[in-house]
């Protein structure tokens, strides 16, 4: 059972790492919108018509 004296601190370090990652993700806006990014995978990458000068060369990712 003495192993617990090492394993529990190790586990807590992992939890701290996980929390740090979560904080980073929240801070960088990963959780601001959970709905619309799901739709982006469904969209086809097609180049917009070249003859239209009001559009960009490449569709934004």
């Amino acid at each position: 059972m003495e192993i617990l004296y090492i394993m529990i601190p190790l586990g807590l370090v992992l939890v701290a790492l996980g929390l740090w990652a979560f904080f980073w993700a929240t801070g960088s806006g990963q959780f601001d919108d959970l709905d619309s990014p799901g739709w982006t995978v469904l969209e086809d990458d097609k180049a917009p018509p070249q003859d239209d000068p009001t559009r960009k060369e490449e569709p934004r990712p």
Partner: protein
Amino acid sequence: MTATGAPCFHCGEPIPRGLVLHARVAGRDEPVCCHGCKAVAEFITGAGLGDYYRYRDTASSRADEAPRPDRWSAYDRPELVERLTRAEPGGARSITVLLEGLRCAACSWLADKALSLQSGVLDVSVNPATARARLVWDPDKVRLGDLLRVLEHVGLRPHPLAGEPSEQVALLERRSALKRLAVAGFGSMQVMMFAVPLYFGEATGMDATMREYMRLVSMLVSIPVALYSGWPFYQGAWIALRSRSVSMDVPVSLGIVLAFVASVWHALTGQGEVYFDSVTMFVFFLSLGRYIEMIARHRAGSVADALARLAPMTARRVRDGVTEDVQAVELGVGDELLVRSGEVFAADGAVLEGDGRVDESMLTGESQATPKAPGALVHQGTLNLATPLRVRVTAVAGNTVLAGIVALLERAQAERPRLARAADRAAAWFLGRILVGAALVFAVWWFVDPARAFPATLSVLVVTCPCALSLATPTALAAATAALARRGVLVAHTDAIETLSKATHVLWDKTGTLTKGLVRIEDVRTFGSTTAEQALAWAAALEQLSEHPIARAFTASGMATGRAAEVEVHAGRGVEGSIAGHRLRIGSRSFANELARTVGAGAAGPETDDGSADSWVYLGDASGLLAAFRLTDPLRPEARDCVTGLAALGLPSEIVSGDQPGAVARIAERCGIAREAARLTPQGKLARLKELQGTGAVVVAVGDGINDAPLLRGADVAVAMGRGSALAQTSADLILVRESLDDLPHTVKLARRTQRVIRQNLSWAVTYNLAALPLAALGFVPPWLAAIGMSLSSIVVVLNAMRLSRGTVPQRRSGYPAVPGTEAA
């Protein structure tokens, strides 16, 4: 009653019978209901965004009018843009735009794509949960006005939110709440993991060092939960205490602090029980509930946003004979404004020139337009229906009537007397018992053994708030809130669930709740060779100059092709005019028919009086009647079922409306409502509400207009419609996002179930504690049994609460995106 056939391709509304109008979409002709929808659908597919129609899961909102490009021209002026927007690195500008009509994730995808395709746009983020978009663009390459025009072209109504980035504040608030929630979630899981061996260690014989170690580790993990995650509760409690009131935060903070301090004391001294598992789970479930509530509130928006939607941000100022577009904040008292028909007044003022009608329903609730002659006062936020008016500004910004209403609501919102009262009662009852008990224990121990008085008192305080007891209410409320959010019912204030379960009456504002709130053309019948489209085009052209509210049903369709000349308005009868030499009349049957020289074949026409008492409007020329239009404010199809369902639950309905008695009586009859009151002012509605409340009734009010805001504010439970006015939403406890009235009886049922579950949980927890604690104290319960009992007690409570979220979402008819975070429950 409704038109048959396929609904509109874009907005899903029924297409007026007899109208044949198509939008060219992806090489196919799709039926649409009006020119507005046609333009939007063709623009969307033309821009290569046709995938939107494949992805969306709710119909789009109706494009009420053809886009008016000149509306955004003020936003093309650099100096205005500079004042409205924020500077970003590299010379870019950013602004937050509220998108009315944004309904689902596909809509936000559409807005994102449409903007991203424009050159000069550096970043777009659209949040469907709050219906707001943040735009960053390069002002050298593209003008803000053009971007707003693009949004309008795809069928969304953009409202730029100027000035202080309240949206940014809300975003930071959400992020910080999510972090606190995560700390509480991770922490409670960890502590639970240590609590189980601690409980069972008692039974199987854990050595004392290990036990001590586990307790210290639990303490270590609990510290961030109690301090960081619990911080908002302490803050709320402090604010409440400083203002000499008791909010829900006070007993919550007291519970957390007492249990935590006692546990720390016990862990450090190695004596007595620790309750770290209870503390962390308590904080977690409370934070979860608060988080879901906050998302709902952010979606409903702030009062300031509501003002932004109502009052236009630009105005047309006349100075030295020159007309210029200016920002509304630039206006000063004494300025002269030109307000065209269909425009909203940007300030309060007095009419200088022009003789027209103004729709003041947003302020007064009166659906009939008010005539305005020179000298009459007009108000900010009201809509000019007819002739252009020249107005001398008498009040701007914070001094207008509208701003006064908003300020009133803001104050009421800050005070929220109902909420405080409810929490007050519960807190006083609970705290009173605990404190008296603790004081007794302290007094007794003081005489028996003074050294043990303090720990014993702490134990009593903590034991009276044990795991199961502290979880009983928050878990049930969190589960119910999450279940409702998945169904599209947003709960802005969780105490509304408790009040709703006790409700006895429902007051409806008719327009926009029982009905859809839009006068529209339901049916077009043509006589002879005229086509429906031709008839509508003529009607729209004739009605363009009319001030009658009905005229808006025609002009909104965007059908007008030509301009009518020699227009003559016959009060109370109709309009006469000529289009390209063709003399036409629109109005009542006899009026429209009078142009015909001989009352002959044309007059016979099909029988249109079907007794439904909907409004019929006729179009005629020299040859007789050409067409008939039926206009209705359609009843929501589920309205009758909803009223019946509520009555079955013991909640009789009653209509309080500002509308005409005839229309109100008709709707009441069709919904099966026995009691109705018509032509009520907002004060009249409030008086009826107070009268009911005076008899001890608990009243639910359902409304959607600005004129309903006082009624909603005064009601015990306020329900607003998802597409209703923003002011109504900020006053609401519940928001029906899907606008499906079926949700209302369901919510009442769920609220009652929630109350039942809370009562079960509380009685279980109290019974368990009452039975187990004295027995354990007297040594009748072996430690292993106490351990199992303790865990089981909490698990029973949590599982019982979770029953609320299961089986309550029978059909997800429309895909309102779930509120982020609700899955966690």
